[in-house]
């Protein structure tokens, strides 16, 4: 198809699609008039049933926890898929498992980073990791959860890289350990669900004590546990993703220097 023909076909098609959208929006209640009943029903049950004051987390890790199992495994499959796709090409490939990835990087010239940036980045590592940890463990009370916490935890490690310590990055995130952590996070989530099945309860049933008062950090049973596991899985998956791309970048940089 010529670009011109394509544009014309697209223009007609898109006009039709937008018309479809508008026709559908016409049938929606106006903005700000959400009619329910799903949301209000959950809002009225969440706190008495789970002792979690963060209702979104209660949905993500309890009411619709099964969605989150799928979601974690999407991330899991994507990280595994990246490892598959980015496996080094034949020419660059060393014999598998001959030496650890850290060794490979040791011999490379990494571009120098300015010392001010290094210091700033290193100083930020601690607080960032702390924030990530806090977010991952406070899903039940605050607008946070394993997902956001996990990404921030991963970015703490990325700061280590930014500080120029890419050797340290490789040491901190050897691929095997990350794989294990990721599998533990995602698999642990599924295992928490299966533990309920073993007890004769429905999958993912919230079988842990809910704690005495709503809003306490130790409240809400499996919600907090699952959020923590999701945090591990997300942090590991993101570090793997970045690590895979980083390794590619380093390989290239070496090739060109």
């Amino acid at each position, binding site marked *: 198809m010529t670009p011109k023909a394509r544009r014309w076909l697209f223009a007609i098609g898109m006009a039709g699609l937008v018309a479809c959208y508008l026709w559908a929006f016409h049938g929606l209640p106006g903005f700000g008039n959400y009619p329910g009943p799903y949301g209000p029903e959950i809002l009225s049950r969440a706190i008495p049933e789970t002792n979690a004051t963060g209702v979104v987390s209660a949905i993500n890790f309890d009411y619709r926890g099964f969605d989150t199992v799928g979601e974690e495994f999407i991330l899991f499959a994507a990280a595994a898929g990246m490892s598959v796709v980015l496996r080094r090409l034949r020419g660059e490939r060393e014999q598998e498992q001959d030496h650890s990835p850290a060794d490979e990087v040791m011999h490379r010239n990494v571009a120098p980073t300015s010392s001010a940036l290094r210091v700033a980045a290193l100083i930020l590592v601690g607080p960032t990791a702390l924030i990530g940890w806090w977010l991952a463990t406070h899903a039940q009370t605050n607008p946070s959860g394993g997902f956001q916490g996990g*990404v921030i935890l991963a*970015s703490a490690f990325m700061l280590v890289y930014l500080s120029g310590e890419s050797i340290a990055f490789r040491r901190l995130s050897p691929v095997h350990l990350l794989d294990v952590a990721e599998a533990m996070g995602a698999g642990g989530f599924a295992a928490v669900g299966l533990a309920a099945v073993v007890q004769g309860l429905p999958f993912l049933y919230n079988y842990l004590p809910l704690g005495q008062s709503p809003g306490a950090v130790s409240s809400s049973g499996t919600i907090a546990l699952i959020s923590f596991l999701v945090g591990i899985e997300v942090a590991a998956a993101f570090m793997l993703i*970045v690590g895979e791309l980083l390794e590619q970048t380093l390989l290239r940089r070496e090739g060109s220097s």
Partner: protein
Amino acid sequence: MTPHAVMQVLQVVALVLVAVGATVVVRTRERVRLVIALSAYGMLLAILFFVFQAPDVTLSELTVGAIALPLILLLAISKVRKPQ
């Protein structure tokens, strides 16, 4: 102005910014600028979600849309800069 009216103004402003942001991202063809535009777009979306009363989504959009994704993109771009 009542709080509702203030909220509404904020929402309209955020929506307009998001619409403009999306257009800018799509119109940007140079790769590094594209990443910067995408990061800014993620930030705008985060603001929109905040005024939509969704702090949870705001936080993840900030961490993913404005930071993690642009970072991954940058790494990928540095990988494909020139044919070897």
